């Protein structure tokens, strides 16, 4: 009973603080405009400094990735002297799929087949859902196409409506990983030597991904107490999607780059890798929660008494930008996808409950980790709303009601200076984003690059609409106790409003 109450309080806290930030600005402007202006000024200064701090980390992370990405990692691992040899390591690549077109999975496997790593050390698990009609046949055809390339391809079909599960990616991945364990035990392959890369169906690893992953796996002294996180780059279909979708996804990539620099706080996100031994020890991904990718980290963190970390890989994985057949649909899909990501706020509840039960972990650690999650979530849900919506509102409305106020005048002035300073951040973003652009399709004119520059003007709008708003929505739903189902982002590419035709002849 008490646990239920604590859980409820934890569910309320993030939204409470997010709304508190927003309401404080609005209410103080209504009753004490001068106070609201001062508050806003402090907030803008804080965010400007924070943005510059993050920009420095972004540049360092980017330079590090650029420097190391193209090293001959295969050669490096071959020369490594370690308790475990590189050729003993088996990579299991898990693709939980649901309704993704066969062509998309085929393209992902083609990319997998193109990596600089012996394919006989890579096995593929195609994890389908029973809920999808004809899935076995679809995955069977794909398996046939690639059967001779990899060590093996296993197909698993996750039964629907298993007790204690919600229909979500985590449940499917867990089911597939359990089948993998059965398979490996049958083949007498030690779980300690297997590294599982849990990919999205559209994930295409960089050619050095496995060599780099193997390097980190072999060299990290506590290899079973670590997750491995590549940099997710959303660029597979970048030339085919609207600017606002490109911008928000580039923001996600940048955020992961920045986070990779704060490694003591770094948490797994989206496609990631982990030792199968560890995965078994923590009882796999959560099956009853939505944000499986980050929760797996916290499960491990608790299991290993906080002696667990996420290692940033030096190579990216490339994924699709979620998009629909028109701008409106893209907006809708992006919103729902970002809301699903923001449902990661449930990590705060998960961790809070577990910290409450755990009497051994130091209180300072508990407070610091909970604060880290709360800070991330509250800032995510509020910063763009405050900066892009509330700030212009206060300046505009203030100009009508308190035109002669020096502090308001100075707020406009500071806002102006900050906007100019942020141009520097935008230019930096343009330069770094250029790095992630795949080669331009030949049929596209070079003029498309103009839109890749101008798109950054959408940042204030996009960051509020597809950044903070979905996060606030997710937190509010959690606060109100509304159950949210897992949103499967539709994957598939469109050309002129129609699903793009890719060679389906398998």
């Amino acid at each position, binding site marked *: 009973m008490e646990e239920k109450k604590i859980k409820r309080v934890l569910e309320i806290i993030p939204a409470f603080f997010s709304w508190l930030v927003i309401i404080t600005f609005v209410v103080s402007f209504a009753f004490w405009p001068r106070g609201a202006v001062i508050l806003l000024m402090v907030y803008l200064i804080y965010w400007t*400094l924070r943005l510059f701090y993050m920009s420095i980390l972004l540049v360092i992370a980017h330079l590090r990735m650029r420097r190391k990405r193209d090293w001959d990692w295969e050669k490096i691992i071959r020369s490594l002297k370690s308790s475990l040899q590189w050729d003993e390591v088996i990579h299991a690549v898990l693709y939980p799929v649901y309704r993704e077109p066969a062509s998309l999975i085929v393209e992902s496997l083609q990319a997998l087949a193109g990596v600089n790593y012996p394919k006989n050390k890579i096995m593929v698990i195609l994890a389908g859902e029973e809920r999808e009609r004809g899935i076995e046949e679809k995955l069977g055809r794909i398996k046939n196409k690639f059967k001779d390339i990899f060590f093996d391809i296993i197909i698993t079909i996750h039964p629907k409506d298993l007790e204690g599960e919600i229909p979500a990616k985590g449940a499917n991945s867990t089911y597939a990983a359990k089948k993998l364990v059965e398979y490996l035990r049958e083949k007498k392959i030690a779980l300690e030597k297997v590294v599982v890369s849990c990919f999205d169906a559209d994930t295409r690893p960089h050619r050095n991904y496995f060599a780099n992953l193997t390097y980190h796996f072999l060299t990290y002294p506590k290899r079973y107490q670590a997750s491995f996180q590549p940099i997710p780059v959303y660029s597979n279909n970048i030339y085919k999607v609207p600017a606002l979708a490109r911008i928000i996804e580039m923001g996600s990539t940048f955020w992961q780059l920045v986070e990779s620099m704060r490694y003591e706080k770094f948490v797994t996100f989206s496609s990631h890798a982990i030792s199968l031994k560890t995965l078994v020890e923590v009882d796999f991904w959560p099956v009853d929660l939505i944000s499986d990718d980050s929760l797996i980290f916290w499960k491990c963190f608790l299991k290993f008494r906080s002696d667990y970390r996420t290692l940033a890989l030096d190579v990216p994985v490339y994924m699709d930008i979620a998009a629909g057949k028109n701008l409106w649909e893209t907006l809708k899909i992006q919103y729902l996808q970002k809301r699903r990501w923001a449902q990661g706020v449930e990590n705060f509840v998960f961790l809070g409950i577990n910290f409450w039960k755990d009497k051994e972990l130091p209180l300072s650690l508990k407070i610091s980790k909970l604060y880290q999650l709360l800070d991330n979530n509250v800032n995510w849900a509020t910063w763009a709303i405050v900066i892009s919506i509330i700030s212009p509102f206060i300046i505009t409305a203030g100009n009508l009601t308190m*035109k*002669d106020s020096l502090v308001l005048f100075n707020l406009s002035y500071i806002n102006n200076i900050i906007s100019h300073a942020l141009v520097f951040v935008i230019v930096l973003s343009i330069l770094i984003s250029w790095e992630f652009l795949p080669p331009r399709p030949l049929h596209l004119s070079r003029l498309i690059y103009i839109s890749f520059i101008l798109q950054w003007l959408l940042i204030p709008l996009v960051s509020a609409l597809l950044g903070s708003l979905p996060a606030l929505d997710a937190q509010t739903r959690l606060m109100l106790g509304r159950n949210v189902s897992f949103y499967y982002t539709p994957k598939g590419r469109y050309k002129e409003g129609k699903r793009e035709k890719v060679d389906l002849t398998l």
Partner: protein
Amino acid sequence: MKNKEDNSFLAFRRFLFWIFVASFFIFTPLILLHSLGYKFDKKHKIFVKTGAVFIKTTPAKAVIYWKGERLKNLSPCILRDILPGEYKLRMEKKNFYPYSLILKIKPSEVKTVEVTLLPKIKGFDKADVECNVYKFFYTRHFFREKILLFTSCGLYTLSPDFGSIHHIGRWSLGAAVLSSIVGLRENNQTIIFWSHNAAWRITKTTKSRSEILPELIYKTNEKINDIFFALEGRYIIVWDGLNIIALDSRFPQAKFNLYQLKSVNAMVFYSSGSDTLYIKDKISSNHYSLFETKLSRLIYGREKN
């Protein structure tokens, strides 16, 4: 290897983090104090509250004079950290009439000055006068001719060629009063001006160093047609509707009726040189005639009575 690399980077990142934290805690209060108008007065070692002025001209890039000194910045520009008080601001641009005004700066306030400069018209000079001009009167006193200018910033005297300009002082008369002024008389010590139903007087005693406090000397429900100085300024004669009234200069509230006119179409003229009052008035139903009398006789006779 990894731990060593990690630790050195962590140290660098922590250093960077604390630099930003320190920047926040150092710069935020300074920016806030500055934004709220506080300025440190080195001389008195205290914080003083200041104001600012935002100057915008059309066309832009006008030269700005602040307290008579030319500023480096052209318009539009903002002047900050200004201590509360009154300041003279002047904007000049080639081929445009200059524009000057007196600004009152209050603490924590931004005064916005938006001025459209008028292009110079060939052959026309503009009086270089601050603020809004409501009325002007051309006066001749002995051999000296001048223009008296009633503005929102006070009273000015100008030489007829605009060559010299003198600000006599500010006042608190509002736009309604200033717009209603219809006449003015001046002698050595005094200026009297009037609207249709009130008259004010400015003397040395009603004027401080920078401020003029016009004295209301007469009020009526009729209509003031004219006012004269009489008997070397000892009396003020008011032609008010059908009445000719004398006010004692020393005590204007002491007034008495000199003459009752018969017609609204009557005319009155006073020659101070000969002390003669000329009156055109009705003598029968359709007939008017001209009369003359010595004003001194009229006044002293009345006083005796």
